[in-house]
């Protein structure tokens, strides 16, 4: 069940010049949160920021009643949240949206571009606990964008691409040599990142007959299915990314 509550800023740790981890904690037990879910965070007292901002959970710490989000600064809202002091209250509606499917004992590929890696820390842990064999590829413009590699190494093989070649393979994510290997064979592919990247991953998956789940990020006003602004065209008509997503089977998308 979703809820609305004030949580306090526990910590903000900057990872590079334009992204940080926002950690919030409360006094009550945190709700049940699944990999792929997101929260709508209100940014108070800031001119030009009117609506809440949606963020995927980066991680959940049930023992300490805390949750964290990976935030990339893209505008006024994300910039303002990064300036909050420890102890300041933040109003949160959560958990929202659907979740990734979690198979048992399968071979899976996770593809995360830029800030699209956010939901994969939780997903990786869950996949590993269910006996899956995991390969993770992260892509970015430069080495500065390749984050959480240490965390991902605990789950399986970690690969990366950078457009400037400063880390891993040079090029965009789908240019990684793994995609052209003869033995490229997975039961399920997960993708989250820029739409062009997700479409390219979805195409590879479709060509090879592999199931693929994408987590979409659309502009939304409410986050709980009433404004009908965040729609995605699907084979069954327009669906709300906030309530019928954010995770979609890419075969259902008109990509």
């Amino acid at each position, binding site marked *: 069940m979703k809820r*609305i509550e004030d949580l306090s800023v526990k910590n903000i740790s900057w990872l590079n010049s334009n992204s940080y981890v926002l950690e919030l904690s409360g006094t009550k037990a945190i709700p049940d949160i699944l990999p792929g879910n997101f929260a709508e965070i209100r940014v108070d007292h800031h001119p*030009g920021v*009117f609506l809440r901002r949606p963020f995927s959970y980066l991680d959940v710490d049930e023992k300490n009643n805390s949750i964290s989000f990976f935030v990339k600064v893209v505008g006024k809202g994300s910039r303002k949240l990064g300036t909050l002091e420890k102890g300041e209250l933040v109003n949160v509606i959560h958990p929202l949206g659907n979740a990734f499917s979690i198979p048992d004992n399968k071979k899976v590929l996770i593809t995360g571009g830029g800030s699209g890696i956010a939901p994969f820390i939780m997903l990786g842990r869950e996949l590993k606990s269910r006996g899956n064999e995991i390969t993770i590829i992260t892509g970015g413009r430069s080495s500065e964008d390749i984050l959480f590699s240490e965390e991902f190494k605990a789950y399986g093989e970690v690969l990366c691409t950078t457009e400037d070649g400063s880390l891993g393979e040079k090029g965009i994510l789908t240019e990684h040599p793994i995609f052209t290997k003869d033995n490229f064979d997975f039961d399920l592919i997960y993708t989250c990142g820029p739409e062009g990247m997700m479409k390219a991953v979805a195409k590879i998956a479709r060509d090879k007959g592999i199931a693929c789940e994408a987590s979409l990020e659309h502009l*939304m006003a*409410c986050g709980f299915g*009433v*404004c*009908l602004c*965040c729609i995605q065209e699907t084979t069954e008509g327009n669906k709300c990314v906030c309530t019928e997503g954010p995770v979609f089977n890419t075969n259902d998308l008109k990509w």
Partner: protein
Amino acid sequence: MVDLSIKIHELELKNPVATASGTFGYGEEFTDFFDPGALGAIFIKGLTLKNRDGNPYPRMAETASGMLNAVGLQNKGIEHFIENIYPAIKNYNTHIIANVNGSTVEEYISLTEKINELDHIPAIELNISCPNVKEGGMAFGVSCPSAIAVTNAVRKVYDKTLIVKLSPNVTDIAEMALAVEGAGADTISLVNTFLGMAIDAETRKPLLSTITGGLSGPCIKPIALRMVWQVYQAVKIPVFGMGGIMNAADAIEFILSGSSAIQVGTANFIDPQISLKIIKGIEEYMERHGVENVKELVGALED
């Protein structure tokens, strides 16, 4: 104890706070946050005869103190509503009011006739002011003859409370209000959204797929308040006022300007419990000002 109840035509509202069509779904979406039965009324998401997919993405843009939307009346049509949604919401302890849309007068009539058969819907809000559809919608609400024609036609087939929702995109709002009053409206609701647009200077592209959309939020409040006041002066029927109400003080301003009841819209997106807070806030205001009955505040603007 203060008395928040108010009668609008034949509708007995337990309090003057309703939620605006298109911002509260069918009520079900809010049950995790509060009991919709606490509200004076719920104006449900706009209905059409047939399924409508609405406009392409992107259909929303945040603006200074507000937002633009170009949803375009996405809904699955009246039959889907009657079969799948109405049974779940009909017993809410509040009035469910249907927002009725058509692209022709005939469509407005057919839809109204179907809704008329639903016992738990005591009123309709005739939407002649949606700015986001190519046919019908606002086209009916920006000229007096067409507003009169559609109101007249629906009045002939509907005996329950008929609310006509006006567009603010007109030169003279009082003239429109008088026109629909003359055509048989029992009450008026205003304002729908203001036609606006937003551009990304970097890409030189519009932010909405439809280029223009409807502006809502606190940025429209002073204009909406002025229009409600003008309409209140002009007509004898009661008014549902709305436009950028974010808190109880805003709601009271609308009541003072002549609204018998108010609708909370865009604020529902930011704080889904806001209507409940507004009801409590009105109560506190009345206690603080020694007002026993909320009716005393309607149009009670002082010089």
